[in-house]
């Protein structure tokens, strides 16, 4: 049985195709049209697996763009999809931290892999990928280079949680000669503290799995581990756990 999961986020659109015991993945920028992004992913996955669109038995769509894909048999929230995807990869998972482009969320799972509680950031970019992106722009580097550029020996504390104020704070620090690496370490700590407090509010329980585009950043993982005092696992393909969950749920729905 062939099923497809789409996770259309604010920054990136992700797709996972489950076909003949194989997992095919694609990620592209969402751009201005979530519908086009989804269609492009479907085309790309179909050609990767060398199948026809008609071969797909079922599709589930999640993420902020979920409502625009009428072709989907069902839309499911990112929360349920991440839980399904991560629990498939790590059956012992109890806490998922997912940091994406515009929101960060913490999901608590029962031993059976069911969502028992969750928390999401309010309407504010603090502790999200957007926060790091704005900061990277101001520092003149690509967001993907933040992690290797951090200098833990010169970590400074960034006090502002607000993206706009943190940016001006950072500009002031640069003006007074603080090192870029130290500022970046401070930014990672700031995200770690913000999201770490969300985890503590729900109650920290191991195993902790860190997903979403921001999980690629080793500096944020380090900061979260420091904040929570526990090891955190970042899955290979940490961006794809939502789409994987969607594809698995599409399969579950058929059986």
């Amino acid at each position, binding site marked *: 049985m062939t099923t497809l999961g789409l996770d259309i986020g604010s920054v990136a659109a992700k797709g996972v195709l489950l076909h003949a015991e194989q997992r095919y993945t694609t990620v592209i920028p969402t751009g201005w049209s979530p519908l086009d992004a989804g269609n492009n992913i479907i085309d790309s996955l179909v050609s990767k697996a060398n199948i026809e669109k008609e071969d797909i038995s079922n599709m589930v769509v999640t993420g902020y763009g979920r409502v625009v894909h009428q072709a989907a048999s069902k839309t*499911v929230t*990112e*929360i*349920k999809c991440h839980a399904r995807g991560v629990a498939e990869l790590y059956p012992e998972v109890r806490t998922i931290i997912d940091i994406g482009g515009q929101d960060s969320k913490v999901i608590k799972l029962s031993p059976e892999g069911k*969502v*028992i*509680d*969750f928390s999401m950031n309010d309407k504010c970019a603090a502790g999200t990928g957007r926060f790091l992106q704005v900061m990277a722009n101001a520092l003149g580097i690509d967001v993907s280079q933040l992690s290797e550029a951090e200098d833990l020996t010169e970590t400074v504390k960034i006090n502002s949680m607000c993206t706009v104020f943190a940016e001006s704070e950072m500009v002031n620090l640069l003006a007074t000669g603080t090192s870029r690496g130290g500022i970046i370490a401070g930014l990672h700590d700031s995200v770690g503290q913000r999201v770490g407090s969300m985890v503590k509010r729900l109650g920290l329980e191991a195993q902790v799995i860190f997903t979403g585009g921001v999980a690629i950043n080793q500096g944020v993982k380090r900061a979260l581990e420091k904040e929570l005092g526990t090891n955190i696992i970042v899955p290979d393909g940490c961006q794809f756990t939502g789409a994987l969950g969607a594809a698995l749920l599409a399969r579950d729905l058929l059986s």
Partner: protein
Amino acid sequence: MSNITVEDFFNIRQENIIKIKEGKENGTKVVGLYCTYCPEELILAANAIPVGLCGTKEEPITAAEETLPRNLCPLIKSSYGFAVEDTCPFFHFSDLIIGETTCDGKKKMFEIMDEIKPVYIMQLPNIQDLDTTFALWVSEMRRLRTKLEEALNVKITDEDIWAAIEVINNERKAAKRVSDLNQMDPPPLSGEELLTVIWSRSFTTDKVSLTNMLNEFADDIEKQAVAETNAKKPRILLTGCPVGLGTEKVIKIVDDLGGNVVAMENCTGYKTLELQNDTSLADPIEALARKYIQIPCSCMSPNPYRLELLDRMIDDFKVDAVIDLTWQACHTYNIEAYTIQKLVREKEIPYLQLETDYSTSDIESLKVRIEAVLEMVE
């Protein structure tokens, strides 16, 4: 045979604007109030019409923010905005405005509202079971009685108050009866229907007809078979800050996503419906004071009756999940959410706290959270 519909309740507000205008022309007095702590019975006993003025719409907030801070509860801003723009007919027609010292935001706003129209303030204690503060509350009831007599040029006798007490006791019983219909499974009323019926009550000029309407509505529903489509919907209890038409976004999202708000434990809903004036007491003022001090608003500290009420409602309404709605910057409900969360977790059902305002800017993010809670119930 009567056939009262939800629409009849929806129309109460509009119809009564006209009735109040006509009443005013014939010399009837109107008293505006902002809170369920204000004893409507005394206003009825003064032969005046009590009307609820709490702002539940987004539109006047921009005007309010010219004076009030942005980071303030939207209900307070909306209420003030309606007053300052003179866009609420009920405020416009009010001869007297009564406020209470419920929360800090409201009481400081009332000081500024006083520039538009005089606001009479009742000193509400923040503790329910202390003799000294209860004595203050009784004296505040008496002071209001005197104020109404002077301002409206009437004499309020004990008999007048007892008569009004009977009217309000009956009205609360009827409103509770309608709310309790949703204990049925499947529930006969959607969240929006329940809100429309219960919220519209505060705009009536005739509490007795309203009571009859509520009872006839309940009679009709009890006779009807409930549509099976409501059968498997997750049953949601809404608690927290007040909600009215104009700010029903959370209720609407739950309904749209396939859930059903079966009950509302907030001051526009069930919070006050069980409370009856004790008619066996000798002094009607004391009866009023005793009833009103029991209202389990988060401005009370501590506030044990809210927990007791929620605990019972979760069982009685066979609730699958609780949504706790906090209007932005409402500190008392926001902090009390911690205690409510503990109770709901002990009952082993999902709990979701939402902090939002009257705007639609966060609809998508609210949808994700609410949908995720409904998924947890499935």
